[in-house]
């Protein structure tokens, strides 16, 4: 029997079901019977940072070329006869896939023929077909994808920053790898990675929309082949606490300089809790959100424009606070942000500011439970991170000013900050 749990939230009036399927796969179903469409995403806990790993049935650490996870994502769409896109063409679903730092996901959305599309998804992801010839063909396509990103300033400014913050952690490498690294990928590399990471015990299927648990299980029972439970361990990246450098610049065809200011963080454990993440988001809004005094000042003085923003950039083994934007004077903006952080560390945070920001972010969180695509993608992320989808609402309700102030004391250490700038060519 499959093991089924219901997860509810009274405030939202929503619930979803989490099923540990006999095959080893975790299946999550969030029904929205009054919607027309459905969205399904089938993901593995394997992304660009997994360039070295160890499995529970072997002792050695295996190292693979950078960009392999993304390459595999491209190639999985192919099979010996019809590729996945040709099959979806018959159901009308829109299909896609993405690779992030720590996961690879295959997805489709549809307003009809849900079961047929789900069959295609479960089937093609479980049937790899790689040959040396198809691998070579893809090197040309992905080579162009990598080149395309070389002209995207927001992408370059981020990866340049990560390169001067991190010595070893593979987060410093472009998700797609490099033209040189992908040249080393062979059909064998792909099969090795596939057989390791595409084990159903390492994967999740999340579905949201106009469907039911029964409908999903009917397809799953037919198509899923039980996998041996092999545990994959991420390696310790031996990342030093210090940063590599505190400044980097590059010239590209842009109108105005773009910048990313990052503050690296170091922890004993590889993952940040939901509460740590939420406290940080509240902090960032208080420091530099569009209701903050700092934002008003920089904006009025012409030092930033509407592209300015901040994020908590975190995943397995990395955590960095990033402020990003366009400015004629990135160094001045950096200085002012650092001063504001210092001021808040000394003077503390005003209760009214905290409450305003908390209310705003709470509203934004509720907005996130609207669309089937964001729900399904969040379900996968939350599962891999180890919490439930509705936990966020609860944390926003219970978080206090003291929590946020305590968080501030251990974040945004000036000695671990670095600035990345793209200058007009």
């Amino acid at each position, binding site marked *: 029997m499959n093991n089924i749990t219901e997860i509810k939230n009274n*405030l*939202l009036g929503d619930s979803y079901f989490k099923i540990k399927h006999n095959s080893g796969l975790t299946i999550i179903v969030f029904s*929205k019977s009054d919607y*027309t469409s459905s969205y399904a995403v089938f993901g593995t806990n394997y992304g660009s940072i997994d360039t070295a790993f160890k499995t529970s049935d072997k002792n050695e650490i295996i190292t693979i070329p950078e960009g392999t996870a993304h390459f595999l994502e491209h190639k999985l769409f192919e099979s010996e006869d019809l590729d996945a*896109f*040709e099959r*979806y*063409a*018959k*159901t*009308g*679903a*829109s*299909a896609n896939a993405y690779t992030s730092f720590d996961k690879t996901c295959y997805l489709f959305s*549809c*307003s*009809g023929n849900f079961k047929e599309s789900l069959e295609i998804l479960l089937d093609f992801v479980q049937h790899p077909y790689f040959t040396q010839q198809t691998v070579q*063909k*893809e090197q*040309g*396509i*992905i080579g*162009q*994808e990598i*080149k*395309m990103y*070389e*002209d*995207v300033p927001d992408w370059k400014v981020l990866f340049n920053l990560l390169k001067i913050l991190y010595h070893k952690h593979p987060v410093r490498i472009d998700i797609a790898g490099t033209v040189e690294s992908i040249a080393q990928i062979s059909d064998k590399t792909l099969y090795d990675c596939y057989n390791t990471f595409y084990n159903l015990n390492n994967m999740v299927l999340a579905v949201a*929309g106009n469907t039911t648990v029964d409908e999903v299980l009917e397809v799953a029972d037919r198509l899923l082949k039980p996998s041996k439970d092999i545990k994959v361990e991420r390696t310790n990246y031996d990342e030093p606490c210090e940063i590599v450098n505190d400044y980097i610049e590059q*010239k*590209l*065809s*842009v*109108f*105005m300089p773009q910048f990313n200011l990052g503050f690296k963080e170091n922890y004993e454990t590889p993952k940040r809790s939901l509460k740590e993440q939420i406290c940080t988001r509240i902090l960032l809004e208080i420091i530099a959100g*569009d*209701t903050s*005094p700092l*934002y*008003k000042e920089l*904006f009025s003085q012409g030092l930033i*424009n*509407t*592209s300015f923003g901040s994020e908590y950039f975190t995943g397995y083994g990395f955590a960095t606070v990033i402020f990003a934007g*366009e400015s004629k004077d990135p160094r001045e903006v950096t200085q002012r942000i650092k001063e504001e952080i210092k001021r808040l560390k000394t003077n503390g945070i005003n209760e009214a500011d905290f409450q*305003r*920001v908390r*209310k*705003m*972010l*709470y*509203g*934004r969180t*509720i*907005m996130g*439970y*609207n*669309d089937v695509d964001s729900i399904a993608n969040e379900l996968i992320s939350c599962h891999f991170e180890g919490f439930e989808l509705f936990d966020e609402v609860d944390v926003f309700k219970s978080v206090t000013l003291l929590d946020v102030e305590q968080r501030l004391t251990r974040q945004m250490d000036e000695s671990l900050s670095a600035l990345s700038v793209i200058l007009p*060519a």
Partner: protein
Amino acid sequence: MENSFNITKIANGISVCSYNTNRFKTGRISFNIAVPLGDNASANAILPYILNRSCGKYPDFSKLNARLAELYGAALTPSVSKIGEAQVIRLSMTMIDDRFAFENESLYQQCAELLCDLIFEPNAENGSFNESEVNREKRLLLERIESEKNDKRVYALRRCEEIMCENEQYGINCYGDTHGVEALTPQSIFDTWQDLLRKGVVQVNIVGNADVDVICELVKNRFAKIPRDEISNINTKIIKSAKEVKRINEQLPINQGKLVIGYRAGITEQDENFGAVRVMADIFGGAPYSKLFVNVREKMSLCYYCSARLYRKKGIIMVQSGIEKENEEKAITEINNQLKLLQNGEFIQDELKASIAGLKDTLMRVSDTPEDIDAWGYSQMTANAFKSPQDIVNEIENVEPHQVIEAARKVTLDTIYMLSGEEGEENE
């Protein structure tokens, strides 16, 4: 009626497009004003950004943002865009549904009032907007225009449109241009604002569980003192076939070349066969099952993306691809060849079926997010008659192969634009 589009005309040139539903956790209200795209583009373009930043009641953006935060992080977004040769000025708001408010307050109504305050009672005095605000927004708009260059795909597409439509209003950038923005004054923008309210075609979209009648009354009252007897006529000039092929090469310091090919579709949206044009453009390059993706990307391995998009109001089709400069001729030849195959009827029943199924599926998904419903209402605002997604499904569902061929044969090549990296030896 629940779960369908309802159009109510509330005054001359002013309508409310509502979609009542309680499926969503959020609601959305947008205020859209359309005027002919023309000489005054820069002044129109700056307005939503000025109106979105403050108003008489919240005279600076920190006060306004604090108010939005109080409304549970209601998101206010200004934008300018073009639908054919209409320039559309737009302010939209997303808010959480009333049932999630801590004290049962009505957020729809408060948000609608705030939107009206922004639009009808801006931060202005004696026939002029606030000078320092205007200066700030001029700077931001200039930066926005210049920053289009940062995204090379967008930039190349815009350049191709400009070149292809240089003698048509459509060639005007919806953000205006540098000279136009620099010449703006607090008074001239104020005059433009008054003109918009008097002459613009207005549509207010409301999605969610709001009391539509209350919002209609609100809008009607705000317009009560504004003369609405001289509404702009919005028409888009459609060139049915290209005369000679324009070919332009430009250079910037970039790594990957951007190829854009512009075609005239040879048909207007009012034509009976328009459903077939949608299907034809989709078989050509709308999705991963389309000819361009399957051949130029998958078979020839020339690029990461190669797609075609139909701009229905203007009757043009734009193909875009990111390629190496050395593959330029190869890609152009193959893209034109794929069109020729369509014109010769060399596509199979499966390709036709795939396009119809794909387009239909996408259309039926519009009703599942407030943003898509709002965007649909917006897309119809300059149409002669409002069409729902289902109406479009009906137009495409029974398209026959001969109609696709007929549509493809009307397509003519107009402009080939290539943006590539700078190479010393190629400089003249």
